[in-house]
C-alpha cells in the first residue's frame, strides 16, 4: 500500500508557516533601513540602541520580579493542590478539581477584567502587587496539573514503607515525597515562570501607572514606538528563548 504524500507536504507547509514570520522578523532586525521594508544593508545598530534604552530594562526587571514572586507562591500552592487531588477522593476533591481546572479554560480578557473589578471594588492600588496576585492565580492551575500528571507514576506504597521503616510524617515528607516530586515541581515552576514572563493581556488589565512589565512595554512600542527597536528586541528575545530551550533540552537529557 502506498502511503499518501499529503501528510508530509502538510507537515512541511505548516513548519514553513510557523517559522517564516520569525525568520522575516529576525532578518528585518539586521536591516539598516530606518523604516523597515526594503533591504538597506546589514547592521547591528538597532541592537546597540536597544542596550541604551532604559525603559526596556526597567520593564524587564519588573517582569522578572513578578515572575519570581508568581512562580514562588504558585509552586507552593499548586504542589499542595496537585498532591491533594492525587491523594484524596470524594466530594471536596471534585469541587477542588473543577475549581483548579476552570482558570485554564477562561480567556485572558475575562480573567483580566474580573480581577480589575475585584481590585477597583476593594480599593487596592494597581501596581506590581496586583500584577503578582493575578499571575499567582493563573499559575496555580498549571503547576497543580503538571504536578498531578507526574504523580500518576507515583507509587503510594513508598509512603507506607517510609513510615514502616521508622520515618515520621515530617521525615517522610522531606526525604521521600519532596525528592520524588522534585522533577514535577521543577517543570511546574518552569511553566509558571514562562507563562508569567510572557503574559500580556491579564497584566495589561491589572497594571497601574509605573508598573510596566516587558510585554506591556513591548505592546506600547508596537502601538507607538519605532519598528526598528522592536525588531531588535524580538531578535534578542528569540535568541534568549532558543538558547534556554536548547539548554533545557541538554539538562533534561543529562538528568535522564
Amino acid at each position, binding site marked *: 500500500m502506498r502511503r499518501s504524500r499529503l501528510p508530509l507536504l502538510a507537515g512541511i507547509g505548516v513548519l514553513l508557516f510557523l517559522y517564516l514570520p520569525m525568520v522575516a522578523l529576525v532578518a528585518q532586525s539586521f536591516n539598516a533601513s530606518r523604516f523597515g521594508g526594503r533591504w538597506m544593508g546589514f547592521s547591528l545598530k538597532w541592537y546597540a540602541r536597544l542596550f541604551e534604552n532604559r525603559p526596556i530594562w526597567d520593564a524587564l526587571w519588573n517582569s522578572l520580579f513578578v515572575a519570581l514572586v508568581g512562580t514562588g507562591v504558585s509552586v507552593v500552592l499548586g504542589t499542595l493542590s496537585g498532591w491533594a487531588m492525587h491523594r484524596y477522593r470524594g466530594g471536596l476533591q471534585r469541587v477542588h478539581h473543577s475549581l483548579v481546572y476552570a482558570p485554564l479554560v477562561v480567556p485572558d480578557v475575562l480573567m483580566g477584567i474580573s480581577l480589575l473589578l475585584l481590585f477597583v471594588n476593594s480599593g487596592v492600588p494597581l501596581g506590581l502587587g496586583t500584577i503578582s496576585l493575578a499571575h499567582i492565580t493563573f499559575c496555580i492551575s498549571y503547576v497543580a496539573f503538571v504536578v498531578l500528571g507526574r504523580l500518576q507514576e507515583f507509587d503510594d506504597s513508598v509512603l*507506607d*514503607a*517510609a513510615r*514502616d*521503616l*521508622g520515618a*515520621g510524617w515530617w521525615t517522610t515528607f522531606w526525604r521521600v515525597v519532596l525528592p*520524588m516530586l522534585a522533577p514535577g515541581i521543577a517543570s511546574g515552576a518552569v511553566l509558571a515562570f514562562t507563562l508569567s514572563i510572557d503574559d500580556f493581556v491579564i497584566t495589561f488589565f491589572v497594571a497601574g501607572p509605573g508598573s510596566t512589565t516587558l510585554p506591556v512595554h513591548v505592546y506600547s512600542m508596537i502601538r507607538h514606538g519605532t519598528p526598528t527597536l522592536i525588531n531588535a528586541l524580538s531578535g534578542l528575545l528569540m535568541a534568549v528563548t532558543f538558547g534556554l530551550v536548547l539548554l533545557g533540552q541538554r539538562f533534561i537529557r543529562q538528568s535522564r
Partner: protein
Amino acid sequence: MDAYFRLDGIRKAFGGHEAVKGVSIDIRRGEVFSLLGPSGCGKTTLLRIAAGLEAPDAGGVFLDGEEITGLPPERRRINTVFQSYALFPHMSVWDNVAFGPRVARRAEAALRPDVGRMLEMVGLAGRAEARPRQLSGGERQRVALARALINRPQVLLLDEPLAALDRKLRQRMLLELDRIHDEVGITFLYVTHDQEEAMSLSDRIAVMNAGRVEQIGTPAEVYERPASRFVAEFIGDTNLMEGVVLDGAAGGVRRLEIPGLGEVLAARGRDSGAGERVLVSVRPEKLHVSRGSLPPGSGRNVIRGRVEDVSYRGAETRYWVRAGALRIAVVEQNARLQHGERPPTWDESVWVGWHADDAFVIGSPAGGETG
C-alpha cells in the same frame, strides 16, 4: 503456649464492607506464620493492622506482652516487605537499605558495616550503587528484604513478596527466604494466596476466608485434617462426598451412607450423631485405582466405577472415575507401577479403594461452620 505476637479479636470495616470479622492469632517467637487465603479474604488488611498502617475498629495488637494497638508504624519494631516492594525510586540500593538506620539517627560510620552485611546476605553486594529501576524483579525483592531486616525488627511482615516473580524465580526465592529466616531467627508473618508458598515455608498457617480464620495449624494439619469445606477445597484438591451418618461412635470409625455409592467408612474428622448430613473429604492421592479387585481389608472402602478421563503427567497419572452420581479424582504415582503392568485406561471398569483413616468428616454440606 507462649504468644509472642498476638492479634486479638481484630475487626475492621471499610465503608459498609467488613474486611476482617473478629480474628485472633497467636504467633510464637521465631516461627514463620502464614496468612493464607484468596484475594479479598482480609489477610492484607490484617497485615496492615499488624504494621500499624491501619487502625482496627476493635481488638488489640500485642507484641512481647505489650499492647501496641495505638502505636504508629514508625514506632513499632515491626518491618514490612511490601507486595510492590515500595523501593524509593530516587535512592540507590545502598540508600534504600540505609534508610531505616539513618531515620533512627545512627551515625553514618556505624551503619556502614550493617548495610554492607545486609547486602551481602541477600547477595547484592555488587549492586549497591544501582537505582531500583535498573534491578530485576528478584533483585528488588532482595533489596526490600534487606531494607526491612536491617532494622532488626521483632516481627517481619511479608505481603505477597513473591507474587510479582515468575515461577522459577519464586521457587529459588522461597529457599532463599527459608535460609534467611534460619540466619536471622526473626518471627515472620507471611501473607500469601499461594498454598505452595505457605506450605513449604511456614511453621503454621492460618487459612482465611471472607474476613474470618477457618483453621490454624501446621501445613500437614490443614492439609490432612481440613476443618471446613473451604479449607479442604482451597488447599490442594479433594473429593467431597455428601452423605448421612449411620452410626457415629465418638472418636472411632463411623459408617455413612453415601447416595449412589453405598456404605462408606470414615475414621477421622469431627464427631457427628446418627442421621446428620455431612461431607466426607478424601485427597486424590489417598485413593487407589485398579483393574483387578482390591483386597477388602479392615477399614477399607472399595467401590466400583468407570474411568472417564485419564491424564498422564509424568511423575503421576490422574484418573477421573465415574461412580454413580459422583466423579472421583484419583492420583497414582507412576513410580508404583510394576514393570510390564498396564495401567487402567479410558472407559475401563475399575475398582477404587481407600482407607477409612484417609476419609475425613467435615461440616455439614450447607455451611462452612466447623465444630
